[in-house]
């Protein structure tokens, strides 16, 4: 029987990869965003202690308007260039997909009445959101991944509809995982508040210029993080429509709702690994460990 061994809220500003200077990324930096990067390093160390087979990532930057899509080919090798921050992120990737589990989740979602499709075009490029989150939690890239697209229900209908659709998808993915023999880590890849500054410092990693876009977004971010610490994820998901609209949050993708539903809506405290602003947006690294014996109070 399969198992979800952890769920991680892993924001994907390309800045954190840029600041880390991995060999796969073409640009070089003088560092920056240490609060996030050190938090990611600690989370990556924890995940190394867990026994798991694959990483499932729900990504806001594979945006689909016709249903939810899953990757259906075993290997992708190319270069991912961030269309918004190409100066920071031009990442040469070489990664593996767990197609078997990807197809199982696709079938489960389809059986549950959702519009789904397998993506089987070998020229398809993996989005930078997937790569940033996957790289920061597993820089060795020694686990296969399963990216899931973000069906843009928030745009087409409302955040409420997104929430319901994402919950249904979470249920379907949970069913597929439990019916498999795989142990997986789930990744919800996004920021919290998501209003950007529209200008960039001459030196992007100039940390004297980094702060949240406005105080309102900060207070909202802290409200959600406080609820996460208290293990009140049901309340977080119920607050999602208001939070998303008030802070232009990247939760509009449905990613966090999907992960919480797939994990059975945790009522235990999240592990908080760090919070920091990146070009105005609010980013928290958090993890939900279902095992009380290994669950930590990190920050």
């Amino acid at each position, binding site marked *: 029987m399969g198992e979800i061994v952890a769920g991680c809220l892993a924001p994907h500003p390309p800045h954190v990869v840029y600041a880390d200077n991995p060999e796969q990324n073409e640009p070089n930096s003088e560092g920056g965003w240490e609060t996030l990067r050190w938090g990611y390093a600690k989370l990556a160390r924890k995940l190394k202690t867990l026994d798991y087979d694959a990483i499932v990532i729900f990504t806001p930057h*594979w*945006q*689909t*308007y*016709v*249903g939810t*899509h899953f990757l259906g080919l075993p290997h992708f090798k*190319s*270069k991912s*260039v961030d*269309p*918004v*921050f*190409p*100066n920071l992120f*031009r990442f040469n990737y070489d990664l593996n997909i767990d197609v078997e589990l990807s197809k199982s989740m696709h079938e489960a979602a389809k059986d549950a009445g959702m*519009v789904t*499709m397998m*993506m*089987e*075009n070998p*020229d*398809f*490029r993996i989005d930078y959101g997937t790569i940033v989150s996957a790289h920061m939690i597993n820089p060795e890239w020694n686990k296969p991944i399963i990216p899931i*697209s973000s*069906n*843009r229900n928030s*745009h*087409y209908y409302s955040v409420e509809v997104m929430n319901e659709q994402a919950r249904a998808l979470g249920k379907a993915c949970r069913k597929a995982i439990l019916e498999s023999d795989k142990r997986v880590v789930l990744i919800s890849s996004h920021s919290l508040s998501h209003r*950007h500054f*529209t*200008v*960039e410092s001459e030196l992007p990693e100039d940390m004297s210029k980094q702060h949240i876009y*406005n105080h309102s977004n900060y207070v909202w971010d802290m409200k959600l993080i406080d609820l996460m610490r208290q293990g009140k994820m049901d309340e977080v998901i119920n607050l999602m429509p208001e939070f998303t609209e008030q802070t232009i949050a990247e939760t509009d993708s449905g990613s966090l709702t999907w992960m919480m539903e797939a994990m059975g809506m945790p009522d235990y405290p999240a592990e908080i690994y760090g919070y920091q602003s990146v*070009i105005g947006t609010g980013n928290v690294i958090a993890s939900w460990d279902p095992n009380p014996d290994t669950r930590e109070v990190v920050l």
Partner: protein
Amino acid sequence: MKDSPIVFGLYVPPHPHPLLAPEKNEGWGKLRQAFDTARKRIEESDADIILIYSTTWPSVIGHQIQARSNPEWVHVDDDFHYLGSMPYKFEMDSDFSHQYHENCGKRGLNSRTIDYDGFPIDTGSVVALSLLNPDNRLPACIVSSNVYANRAESIVLGKAARDTLEQQGKKAIVVVVSSLSNRMFTDYIKPEDDRIHSAKDQEWNQKIMQFFQEGRLEDLSQLSREIHNQIRVQKVVAYKPIWWMAATMGQNNNYQGEVLAYASLHGSGGAVIQLTPTTGSIGDKEFDEDDIEFYTGDRHVLDNG
């Protein structure tokens, strides 16, 4: 209009069906034929450059302007990947791009040029350039659509483009890549079952095309907010392409309009429309939104409240 830097303008749809699958639906085929007609007219013109504003290239850090001389890649659409891949090798007018960037700055806009191997040129731009300029007969320039920009920035962005054309003495084919109504079906449909998503979208598309046919581009620009509220999925803050197009082409109603084709693309309104500058004018609307020459940024209303 022999003094105009604009040879003519084109409004074309972003989705890949006319490029990758024109034979699968009569309407997609008509859009493809219209693209082909537009291509021939470009070839027969004395234009120096194809200048594109694409709604499928979003940006955050101001507006981005493609400046790589020969961008080359194989593009795949996020939604319609099953229709096939889109290999491309384009030729950009880098000199124009750099001066356009400078002129944005002179008008108060934040912008930057883009020159990176592997930069993902968006579906709409790939479709437009592949069909309108397959042999790179003319160099091109592509400008992004900033997700936070509204009317002032979009209009000033258009004026900066026109400044650049006038400074360089170049004549342009101005291309806007955008749907009319942009609501697609959220389920898979057979190609033969494609239709405009709703009767409301259909009626508004017809009204917009009537304005285009009458050459009333500035009137459409004035109606932009209403169009956005009525038939645009609220993905971004405003229906911006028509502001940019009107500003680039001269902010008037003096055009000969021609709808070359109109058809649904998975429910959205796809049209290939040509606007050619003339001396005639039509339009009885009162222009009730102020013109703007220079973008001064946020007004910091919250800070001052």
